[in-house]
Structures are given as structure tokens and as C-alpha cells.
């Protein structure tokens, strides 16, 4: 080689530069609140009111210990976990059954029935909380995890059905057909063929629904009153509301926030592909 210099068009560097600047800006904007939350939860309370700001305080678990001491924190964690798991389970079972019916049993009018179900997800959750309060009360499900599980599962079902229907439709029917000809019962078809084959879709919707349930505020806030059924999302609002505007214990509030957020972030880090596939699967079709 004899020193030939390649002249790159100006757009080569500028194009890449713009992309990288955008990338840095994007990363900063997305992660700033997360950093702030973590920093505030691991800082001694006194560090939070120091000027100039302490960006990297010496970490301490004091705030989390305070939480466990002063509120039924572990109970709240347990409740959130049970609520999220139960909701996920109920939603998946109910939606899978219905999705199978919509995907495999077609007749004139069956798609209208399906669209009625799916479009019901346009209903805002608040629109029905008043009657739901009375209904749950009369069913003695007020202030129970079972009650809020049923209500939220119902709210999450339409979207889950929508996604599962499009997944099941992509499964070739020949496998089931062969099984039917071989005399398999419906339960066997479900258990041996359908569930294993649609596992990616079930995992995806399971993750999405778990995250939705774990994050849910309105239903636990409206329908639970005692620590045996309140969730973390309710507890964070209580800590906030319990203090005057000038004395908010931000270190505690952020500690609860971190407890709620970090598990979700970890989940998302490990299953990004699956979740995105589920979230976009319904929309793109």
C-alpha cells in the first residue's frame, strides 16, 4: 500500500456521530430516574438534603431496614408476589381456553364475539371501580387478594386473548388433526400438543401479565384496606401520603420504589425478546 487516502463523504462521520449522540442522550434520559431512585434509596437520609448534591453517597441498607421495622414491609412484598402470580395464572388459563376456541372453532359470528371481548380492553379501569367496590363487597371479596386477582385478571384477559389467538393460528393444524384422528381427548390435545407448542407465547404473556399485576395500583388501592392484602404499590402511596409536603421521607419512598422496580428490570433484561414479541404481536398481526 502506498498511502492512498480514502476520502470519506462528510456524511459518513456525521451520520454515525448523530446516531451516537442520540444514543447517549437516549441512554441518559432513560436511566436518569433509575439512577436517582437507586442513589436515593441507598443513601443515608442526611445525604439527601445536602447541597451540593451527593451523587454517589456511601451506600447503606439503613432505609430498607427502617422499612421492615416500621411497616409490614415483608408482608407487602409477599402480597405483591402472590397477587402477581395468581393474576398471571388465572389470566393465562382463562385466556388460553378462550383463545383456543376463537382460533380453532370458527363459524359465522365467532369473530364478532372475539372482537367484543378484545375491544372491551378499551374500557378504562376507573370506569367501573364504584360498582366493583359494591360487587366485591357483596361477594365478601373486598380486602382480599382473591378479589383483586379476579378483577385484574379480567382486565388483562382481552389483550392476552388477542395475542394468544394470533399465536395459536400460526400453529399448523395438522398436528392436532393427527391427534384427533388417533382418538386423543381434548385434554390430551391441550396438555401434550398445544401447550408445549405455544409455550413461547404463554411465557411471553405470562411475563407481561406478571409485570402488569406487580405494577398495578388502582385495584389494590381501591379494594384493600389491611396489611394482609395490601401490595407494595399501595404501601408506597401510604408512605408518601403519611407526611406533610415538606417532610417527605424520600429515602424510604425511593427504597420501596427500588424494591418494586429492580425485580422488573431484571425480568426485562433477561426476557427482552420475548416481551417485545408479545407486546408487538397483537398490534402488528
Amino acid at each position, binding site marked *: 500500500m502506498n498511502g492512498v487516502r480514502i476520502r470519506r463523504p462528510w456524511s459518513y462521520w456525521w451520520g454515525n456521530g448523530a446516531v451516537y449522540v442520540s444514543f447517549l442522550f437516549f*441512554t441518559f434520559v432513560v436511566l436518569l430516574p433509575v439512577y436517582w431512585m437507586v442513589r436515593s434509596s441507598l443513601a443515608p437520609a442526611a445525604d439527601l438534603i445536602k447541597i451540593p448534591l451527593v451523587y454517589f453517597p456511601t451506600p447503606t441498607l439503613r432505609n430498607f431496614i427502617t422499612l421492615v421495622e416500621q411497616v409490614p414491609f415483608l408482608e407487602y412484598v409477599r402480597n405483591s408476589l402472590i397477587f402477581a402470580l395468581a393474576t398471571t395464572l388465572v389470566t393465562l388459563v382463562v385466556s388460553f381456553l378462550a383463545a383456543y376456541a376463537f382460533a380453532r372453532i*370458527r363459524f359465522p359470528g365467532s369473530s364478532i364475539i372475539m372482537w367484543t371481548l378484545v375491544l372491551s380492553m378499551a374500557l378504562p379501569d376507573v*370506569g367501573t371501580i364504584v360498582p366493583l367496590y359494591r360487587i366485591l363487597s357483596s361477594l365478601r371479596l373486598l380486602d382480599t387478594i382473591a378479589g383483586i386477582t379476579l378483577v385484574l385478571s379480567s382486565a388483562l384477559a382481552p389483550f392476552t386473548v388477542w395475542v394468544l389467538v394470533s399465536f395459536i393460528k400460526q400453529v399448523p393444524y395438522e398436528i392436532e388433526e393427527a391427534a384427533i384422528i388417533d382418538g386423543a381427548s381434548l385434554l390430551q390435545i391441550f396438555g401434550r400438543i398445544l401447550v408445549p407448542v405455544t409455550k413461547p407465547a404463554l411465557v411471553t404473556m405470562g411475563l407481561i401479565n406478571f409485570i402488569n399485576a406487580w405494577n398495578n395500583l388502582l385495584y389494590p388501592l381501591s379494594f384493600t384496606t389491611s396489611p394482609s392484602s395490601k401490595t407494595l404499590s399501595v404501601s408506597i402511596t401510604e408512605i408518601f401520603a403519611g407526611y406533610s409536603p415538606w417532610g417527605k421521607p424520600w429515602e424510604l419512598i425511593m427504597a420501596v420504589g427500588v424494591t418494586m422496580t429492580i425485580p422488573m428490570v431484571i425480568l426485562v433484561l433477561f426476557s427482552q425478546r420475548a416481551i417485545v414479541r408479545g407486546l408487538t404481536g397483537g398490534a402488528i398481526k
Partner: protein
Amino acid sequence: MQQTYAPGLVRAKGQPLLSSLSKAAQRRYVLFLLLIAPAFLLRITTAAYPILQTIYLSFTNLNLLKNTNEFIGLQNYPAVFNDYGVQEALSFTIMLVVSSTILELIVGMLVALLLNAAFVGRGFARTINLIPWAIPTIVAGYAFRWLLDDQFGLIPYWMNLISGTRMVAFIDPVSARIAVILVHVWKDAPFMAFIFLAGLQGVPLDLYEAARVDGANAWHRFWHITLPLVMPLTITMGLFRVVWSLGSFDLVYGLTQGGPGVATSVLALQVFREGIMFFKFGFASAISVVLLIVVAIVGAIGLWLFRRSEVSY
């Protein structure tokens, strides 16, 4: 070709339905009903029936604290529309929904273009894009409230370092509203970006090649190829986002609790306040009905827009 389970349904005119069904077809019908029963049961008890109840309750003065429960016809509605809180909530709800959806569409598209570009770190970018979606909305609300705290929050602190001004976000109604809108965008635009990304990835590359050969520059390619092809998706997502954000509650509850005063209150918050906090069930139901009507109107407009947007190439 997908098999259908109902071979016996094709029948001659005038023939009664059930007897023309083979036994297999009858069994399929029953199976269908059994399979959709749990889902429909849930929906009917927690959505369909409660909506009817809401409408009925809006015609009563049910109040658990005052122990009243009489049918009062339409009397709640003038009270609802004259209520200052509801008026402010209605106007801000619409303001929030319109501005945040427009911003989310734009920002979502920009982020999607970024995530579609080829650069080292793209996988990382795509992963952290899920964080705003994964973080609980109420936590995001509190996190930003603290981030924007006028005394010890990071952003006002930096604003002060840079420009010497004191930024007090939540005392002034206008800045509080802007804060709510922007945090809303932060929370939801990444999700839009994923949808757009999937759409962008579905555009055939040879369309771009052909355009490039014909001399179109990047902007041209975006405006005449990408945008029209992504438009149906945009409208669908815009529609969903608008309808969904009409019921937005958690963010406002955490960020401003509707304040200052009721400047950033939304309809959902008013329903919660009047209903779950003050137990004015009749009044709250009337507000709910107003919300449901707004949702229905917006939904209808959206469907009409959607019909008009089909693009073929």
C-alpha cells in the same frame, strides 16, 4: 388452510338451525361455549354488568357516608359539570391525552429510527428501552417528583447551576401540567418505539434501494416510503394510546396528586377521589359516565380515521 370445526353449518334457506347440525357440529358449538365461558364470565361480572351499574348509580345520590340512596334522575349531571374539580379534570385530561399522544408518536418514531440504525450498543439500547415500560407507573411518578424537587432534586439543581434560575415545577399550574405531560411521554414513548420498530422492520428494503437509485435522499425516503407505510400502524397505536391514557391515573396520583389545587387532575383521579375516598358513589358514577362517553367518542373518531388510512403499495 386452517380447518374449521363446524362443517354442519352450511344449510339451505328455511331449514331450522339445530336439526341441520350434525352431532359433531353440535358438540363443537358446546365446546366453543365452554371454552370461552370463563373469560366471558369474568368480563361480564367485572366489566359489562358494572358499566350498567355505573350508569344506573349515576342516576342516584348514593353516598355511603351520608347514607342516602335515592333515585334522583339526571340531577347529578349538572352538579358534575358545575363542579370545579371535574371541569379542570376534564380540560386537563383532554390536554394531556392530545399532547402526550402526539409527542409520544413523534418521540416514539425517533427512538424507533435510532433503534433501527446500525451501531455498536444497539442491543443495549433496545434492552433499556423496556425500562420505562417495566417500571411501575406510580414509582415513576414519585421518582420524577423527587427528581424535580425544587430544593434537592437533580434537575432543578442543574438548572440552577447552568442558568441561575430556581425551578419550582409544582407550584405553578402551567409548569406542573408540562411536567405531567413530559413524564407521561417518558413512560410511554419507548413502548410506541417498539411498535414502530416492528413496523419499520417490515418495510421491504428494495423499496429503499429503488428510491436511492432514483436519487431520493434520506428525508425523501422517510417522508414518501417509511411514513405512508407506517401510517396505519401509527393511527392504530395513536388510537390505543389516546383511549388508554384517558383512564390514566397512577402517574398523576404519584407526580402531583392532581395539584396544585386541581390543575393537573384528570377524570380518573376525580372518580377515585369522589368515589373511593369520599364515598359519593352516585356522584362518582356520573363522572365515570362522562369519562366513558369521552372514551366512546374518541374511539369512534379513531375507528373512522383507521378506515380511511389503508395504504397499499
